[in-house]
């Protein structure tokens, strides 16, 4: 399955490194990254693949959310299907 990670918050050094680091540690493959900075707000969207992940989706989600709390960023990890079903017929 594939998931979407979204990160929104105040820009600072090392956000991308931290998130992609946790992906690598858990065997989650990053397929695509889109990133923009609006004023000083950082906004990143990552499409990731859980095919070879070595932890269950929910556990990975907990880990990433913990990083979000640590760095005061709003991070969500969600199954790709929710966006597909809501925005595509």
């Amino acid at each position, binding site marked *: 399955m594939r998931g979407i990670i979204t990160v929104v918050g105040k820009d600072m050094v090392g956000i991308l490194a931290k998130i992609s680091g946790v992906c690598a540690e858990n065997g989650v493959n990053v397929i695509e990254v889109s990133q923009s900075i609006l004023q000083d707000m950082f906004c990143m969207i990552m499409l990731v693949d859980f095919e070879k992940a070595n932890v269950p*989706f929910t556990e990975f*989600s907990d880990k990433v959310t913990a990083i979000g709390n640590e760095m005061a960023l709003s991070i*969500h990890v*969600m199954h790709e*299907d*929710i*966006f*597909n*079903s809501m925005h595509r017929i």
Partner: protein
Amino acid sequence: MINTHDILETINMIQDENLDIRTITMGISLLDCCTGDAKSTCDKIYEKMTKKAEHLVKTGEDIEKEYGIPIINKRISVTPISMILASGKGDPVLYAKTLERVAQTVGVNFIGGYSALVQKGFAAGDEALIRSIPEALDVTEHICSSVNIGSTKAGINMDAVKMMGQIIKESAEVTANKGCIGPAKLVVFCNAPEDNPFMAGAFHGVGEPDCVINVGVSGPGVVRSAISKIPDANITEVADMVKRTAFKITRMGQLVACEASKRLDVPFGIVDLSLAPTPAIGDSVAYILEEMGLEQCGAHGTTACLALLNDAVKKGGVMASSHVGGLSGAFIPVSEDAGMIAAATSGALTIEKLEAMTCVCSVGLDMIIVPGDTTAEVLSGIIADEAAIGMVNSKTTAVRLIPAIGKDIGDTLNFGGLLGYGPVMKLNTASPAKFINRGGRIPAPLQSLKN
């Protein structure tokens, strides 16, 4: 990759606009639990329900986490207990206590189906069950009750209407020390749907399969926000915007329903398209109506706005789901909707206006707090009026009134949680006693010669 705008829109809906799945409700038939004896019937009920719903809560939580969409309630609806009582006999409250034990074991937050269908008359078990409702709702915490007293095909059973006025009053009195919570879990229906996932009126109809998953979506905040982005649009554009938004909300409900059905290995029943508010600020149907251009909900024009909203939600939702059912429309429970509470408190929203609104919305007079000294006959009069609206218009209507014992107009009654709080509303107290005491049945209405 999926469009960035779409991703952020979805996250914004969930984060800031209170978009959620209101309930995953598992319907379970209890017909095969009848043994002819109360004790063994209850044992079988417990066994079947705890087995079927064993993983319901866990599955709901897993889906919630994987998809990142909050699922507020996991619930169960069962075959109307009056039918089981007809065979099992014994004390009806024993069945309520059994259901309560099931709720505690599997961790659901409500079980609906302590119900009777008496639109044409009372069968074995019906009257005993109805008489036991005040006690059953007092000794249990998670059980919801409903009674269907009328339908378009059968007319209105006025004996049952009379009885339900008394039962509501009695239920408020016996739970007076618990904030009159009893009648907040009791709905009186006309044209009750058999696949409704929403409480307090959910029950598992006899035409349903053995076990089924029904899902209710929510999202009034999302609709309000969408309308707020087009402040100068004409009403056609507003209707289109509501349709588009309802489509997106419902797609999510369909996805969750299919996923839950697959993981639990239980057939998918329906998605209920209702816009269900909560007392949280921003999660209000009244605010949608105000966003359309009313100074406050209850103003003249409210019924028209609600008609538009209700219709557009259905049009948008129908395309998004493979099976639509339940109540499907806009809910207007007064105590559960911040905007309705404000409008009722300021006096802009009266019970007469609410009654008019029920002609065009999905349910009826829902979660309305009335003075504690309201007579049973007046309560019955309100039920009869509301049932007449449902009967003639071939739609579901319901009444959930809470007499606030010891309180009067202007006081506030607080239930807490999703049931919310609200002001005691003024009623017309002229007595309908003679009419109510006549008994009998209002004949089914003519459904042709409509000119």
